[in-house]
């Protein structure tokens, strides 16, 4: 394909995630004209998707190097549990938060080491850490929810500086940092090059193992941060609270791929994917659709959007 982007009809450029998002917004606005576009609902929506946005941005880095991280959900749960237990044990909030994020970094190092240096497939390695972490969370909590977290920790997820939810601000910051890393730094170039053609990257002098390892470290740290915010928002730590984030974060990156011109993972596309999933969730709730049916619809959306991006990939 040699035509440039400008020659494509406007509708083609709008296909995939952006078009789907517009369609969903139009649909819900027509069906619930008073409730859906209400600022209160939209603010609620943003707050709701902020945690997913952080995990999905971190997942984008791993998927940019053509791997994926199945352990992000379990890491988020584990990080919340660690923070909660430390807080209950009397640690200051700062220290507990730092310890939880450090845990995420270590998990990322382990994943990255297994994948990049022991040559396990990302599937096997992160499935294994996911399973082990799920066990760890249950062990540390006896399978129950931890309540009674201190007030200053709850500010992280529930505070509203200047009227804006803190989680949304944090998510925007994380998104901006990862966007910057991926598109403006030498490290971002290495991630994209290894994801595009690992062999060519090696020939060009890039340390492929280190590059993949670092991507997993980012996803581990991002997942841990998300887990903290989740615990703070819910004012409790549950051993499986973060688990659904794994599938939805990968889904968001895939949906985002349908929006990108170059067909490689990027933060802008991923955030679009997160908003699509969030609007779908929010709108279907407003329409009182059975939550199980919602899950089925989400699955359908993923298949359709990935199918679309595949077709476009073949054409170019």
């Amino acid at each position: 394909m040699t035509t440039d982007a400008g020659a494509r009809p406007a509708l083609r450029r709008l296909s995939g995630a952006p078009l789907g998002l517009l369609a969903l917004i139009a649909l819900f606005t027509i069906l619930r004209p008073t409730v859906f576009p209400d600022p209160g609902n939209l603010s609620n929506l943003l707050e709701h998707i902020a945690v997913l946005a952080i995990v999905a941005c971190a997942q984008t880095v791993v998927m940019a190097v053509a791997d994926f991280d199945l352990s992000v959900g379990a890491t988020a749960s584990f990080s919340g549990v660690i923070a909660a237990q430390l807080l209950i044990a009397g640690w200051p909030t700062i220290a507990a938060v730092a310890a939880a994020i450090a845990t995420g970094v270590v998990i990322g190092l382990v994943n990255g080491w297994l994948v990049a240096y022991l040559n396990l497939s990302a599937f096997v390695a992160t499935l294994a850490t996911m399973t082990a972490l799920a066990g760890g969370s249950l062990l540390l909590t006896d399978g129950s929810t931890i309540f009674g977290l201190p007030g200053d920790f709850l500010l992280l997820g529930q505070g509203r500086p200047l009227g804006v939810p803190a989680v949304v601000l944090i998510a925007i910051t994380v998104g901006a940092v990862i966007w910057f890393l991926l598109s403006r730094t030498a490290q971002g170039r290495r991630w994209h090059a290894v994801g595009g053609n690992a062999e060519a990257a090696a020939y060009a002098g890039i340390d492929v193992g280190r590059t993949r390892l670092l991507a997993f470290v980012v996803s581990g740290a991002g997942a841990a941060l998300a887990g903290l915010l989740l615990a703070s928002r819910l004012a409790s730590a549950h051993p499986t609270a973060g688990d659904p984030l794994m599938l939805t974060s990968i889904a968001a990156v895939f949906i985002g791929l349908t929006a990108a011109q170059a067909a490689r993972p990027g933060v802008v596309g991923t955030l679009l994917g997160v908003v699509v999933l969030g609007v779908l969730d929010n709108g279907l709730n407003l329409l009182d659709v059975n939550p199980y049916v919602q899950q089925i619809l989400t699955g359908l959306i993923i298949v359709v959007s990935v199918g679309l991006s595949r077709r476009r990939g073949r054409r170019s």
Partner: protein
Amino acid sequence: MKVAKSPALRVTGLRHAYGRHIVLDGVDLEIPEGEVHALLGENGAGKSTLIKIVSGALRPSAGKVEVHGRGLAGVAGARGAGVVTVHQNLGLVDDLDAMENMYLGRPYPRRGLFTDRAAARRHTADALAALAPSTPLDVPVRLLSPVQRTAIALARALEQEPAVLILDEPTASLTAHETEVLFGVVRELRERGTAIIYVTHRMAEVFELCDRVVVLRDRRVVARVRPAETDPDALVALMTATEAGQAPPRPPRPAGEVVLGVDGLTGHRVGPISFEVARGQVVGVAGLGGSGRSELLRLIGGVQRSRAGQVRCGGRAVRPGSTRAALTAGIALVGEDRQRHSIVASGSVRENLSLGSLTALSGGAGLMRRRRELALYEEMTTLLQIRAAGPEQPIGELSGGNQQKVVLGRVLATRPQVLLLDEPTAGVDVAAKQAIRSLIGDLAARGAGVVVVSSDLGELLSLADRILVLVDGRLAADLDPREADEYTVLRRCYGGSA
């Protein structure tokens, strides 16, 4: 004698082009029942394409293939007509055992409703008995020796009672004794009337085994002779293009101090190899496919870790097994297969150019400096005359020649002292070929040491100050291009003596 009968295999007017690149142009071939025909030709003469077409894997642009007078269509058609191919890589599934490989794609014997594995196993043992009797049947074939693996692939081919059997370098990984066993099988098949195409790089096998020799050159069959009527040197002469108006040999370049020292370098199937390259010198490396040319460059360039020996650049030892260490030391490598080793297809021209020097193009915090990147783009597009719509154009939209120039630009941006180029002009148009060759001369003139691997012997002769010939992973000759021609180089590649 066989006049009235249609031959086992008849190929007429075969023509094939990949895009605008013509690889076969009017090939005719006829193999009667019970004859073994050797297929000879330089790298790139069109042997692989011919085999693919005969085995049905590739549809030719024009011409036809007939087996016993019946036309073929596709792989299934070729199989049905009895064309069976044993590829050089043997086509075995590594994780399955011998029996499972034997029955790959074929029904197992049955007993009632169930497959009869015991019978299948007995049958496998019988089939292998003549070829490699002690082959273990219950282990994945990945654990077997080369001869055992070859035996399985061959036994599987024989099960299909081929009318035409294609053997693509079957002896590449066999010892002399094992080769004899294989020859026995081939002779027996010949007795039974099978027509055999035997592709090889080993001249001695041609004379020991084959009834006819078919030589491909420049996309055509240039000779079809009986071994008794020729000799190895004459065959090599037939393979060598003797185009009129070949470039005259260049005057010798003044050689400077030694910039690259290779000392006893040993890899998986190469070495030990020692040689030196001086500043301003272009060293050509010639060798047949599988001679270890590419592996030698990969060892020097740090893509593969050497088992023994040392590489020195500018007098300092280079840490093995790291492209980064090699680049830091001043050794840059451009790989053989552009799509596989060089291009990041999802990236732009700018991103592909910058890939080798990300650190230099970014500031303290690893932040990419756009202005430096664009300056590099300007510099390299001007120097190499890269035709691109702009820095943001996807690399995949460029022609092969321009892609190759981008890769060269990427490497030049690292300011290498030693440049290792593996088939730098393969698959590029004539103008780009010329541009790349003159660039190599310029780089040498500015004091770089250049090592070029090329299958185009004319190119090597006009480009190099010295030509190293590799045979079976060893340095077989060190030739002066001013005293050699394509014929002498190719003869040495086939293991001929001075």
